[in-house]
């Protein structure tokens, strides 16, 4: 056990060292090795811009836009994916028909259809929500089908032999058997929704964090742009940590 703890501590140290080293190389490249400031701003300047962004609160509006799009997209894809996935999993026939189809569509980079989404839904949040919902729908529906569709038959038979009703079967057998796989699908859906929404904001949008970053790049305000990138990374890492913690907690219960 102790050996295990020490192993974990060492790997944490390596991870932290990697990040520190990265920032150090960045600093040296910007100050000593003569890399153009327009390509790579000084990390100290980035840090002071980041402080300014946080203290002035100018990020709030963009953050609200992006998180609002994310919440709407995830609400749509989670509801649709869970409901449709459950219904499909009730029938062996529909599993065989739709599971390979969804898996095939999942492999397509749906972001290619962004221009189409923009034509349909405009440059505002609606096109980001539609794109994010579409992209994140697939991992959710695929995992929901996999979760409900591949429950050990013996457990179902055993429950039935003891007199389990349909409600009992769902609540005490199907749901606990499927939930680990479904939770993984929800986490993957959430992450892909976040990535595709920020990504599409950088390509075609009027607001949001992705939009802000591209806007600063076009204005050549590199230090501030880097500061926003760091900010978005921090938001993404935090959201991912929260969702992973929720997933782990859901799997324990």
């Amino acid at each position: 056990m102790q050996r295990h703890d020490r192993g974990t501590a060492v790997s944490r140290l390596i991870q932290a060292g990697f990040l520190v080293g990265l920032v150090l190389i960045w600093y040296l490249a910007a100050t000593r090795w003569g890399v153009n400031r327009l390509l790579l701003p000084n990390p100290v300047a980035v840090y002071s811009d980041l402080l300014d962004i946080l203290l002035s609160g100018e990020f709030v509006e963009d953050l609200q836009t992006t998180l609002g799009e994310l919440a709407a997209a995830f609400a749509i894809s989670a509801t649709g994916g869970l409901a449709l996935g459950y219904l499909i999993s009730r029938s062996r026939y529909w599993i065989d028909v739709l599971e390979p189809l969804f898996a095939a569509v999942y492999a397509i980079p749906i972001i290619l259809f962004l221009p189409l989404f923009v034509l349909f839904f405009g440059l505002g949040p609606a096109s980001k929500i539609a794109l994010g919902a579409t992209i994140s729908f697939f991992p959710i529906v695929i995992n929901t089908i996999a979760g409900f569709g591949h429950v050990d038959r013996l457990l179902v038979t055993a429950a039935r032999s003891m007199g389990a009703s349909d409600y009992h079967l769902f609540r005490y057998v199907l749901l606990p058997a499927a939930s680990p796989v479904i939770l993984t699908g929800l986490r993957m859906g959430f992450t892909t929704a976040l990535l595709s929404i920020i990504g599409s904001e950088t390509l075609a949008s009027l607001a949001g964090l992705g939009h802000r970053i591209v806007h600063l790049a076009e204005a050549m305000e590199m230090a501030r742009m880097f500061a926003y990138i760091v900010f978005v990374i921090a938001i993404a890492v935090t959201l991912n940590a929260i969702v992973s913690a929720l997933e782990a907690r859901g799997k324990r219960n």
Partner: protein
Amino acid sequence: MAASEAAIKVRGVFHRFGEEGDQRFVRALADTSLEVAEGELLCLIGPSGCGKSTLLNIIGGLMEPSAGGVEVRGQSVRGPLPRDIAFVFQENSLFPWNTVVENIELGMTFQGVAKSERAARAAEALEAVGLKEFAHHYPAQLSGGMRQRAALARALSLKTPILLMDEPFGALDEQTRMILGEDLSVLLARTRKTIVFVTHSLGEAVFLADRVAVFSARPGSIKQVIAVDEPHPRRPEFVTSAKFTSLRNQLYGLLHDEIRKAVHQSTALGASRPV
């Protein structure tokens, strides 16, 4: 009802999987008839794939026979009868996300036992199988033998007059299986349940059964029924007695040809073994 009244009556049961001409078509059971008396322990023994598990599932209402019918305590079987029949399956039929005691209580929830009674009955069942200290373990934390004890406890807690056991010790090693067999004999002598027990172990059949029904190779039907006239609970010394050996040899003689036939079938047809 008189003590000699049959608890289970199987009348001319046929069963097949798939349709005729189909590649997976299998005639599992052909014209099988059988009676099990109240309080009797009947073992079904036969070659792999002879349909003994299929017959058990049909008796328990988990499968519908292609032809023929089953009566349990006077009523004809149309589906599971959770108040009359409890199952113990071969392995891994415990819900892995529940502890042992949760598994037992969940079975009673399914059966409709009042919440106030469940804890006491679960404790009693755990005590009976000697798993009291492991009530709060998860199935994955137990050995195969302990998992089967837990599954037995779950079945016992349902207090059904009939117990159907489908190779409950089939996945265990010989020594564990022997001990569980001895414990089971003691336990069952106390409860006086009617039991049908599927096995492919000759020794287990002779040790546990009041009667042993020997199946023919597929399509399975009952070739002969042998009585084991020995009171319960069976003592470990019974295994080394001349009576045990002679019964075991008799069973071996009956089974040997059928096993040859079954092995020939499965190598000739590419082993499509139904559940």
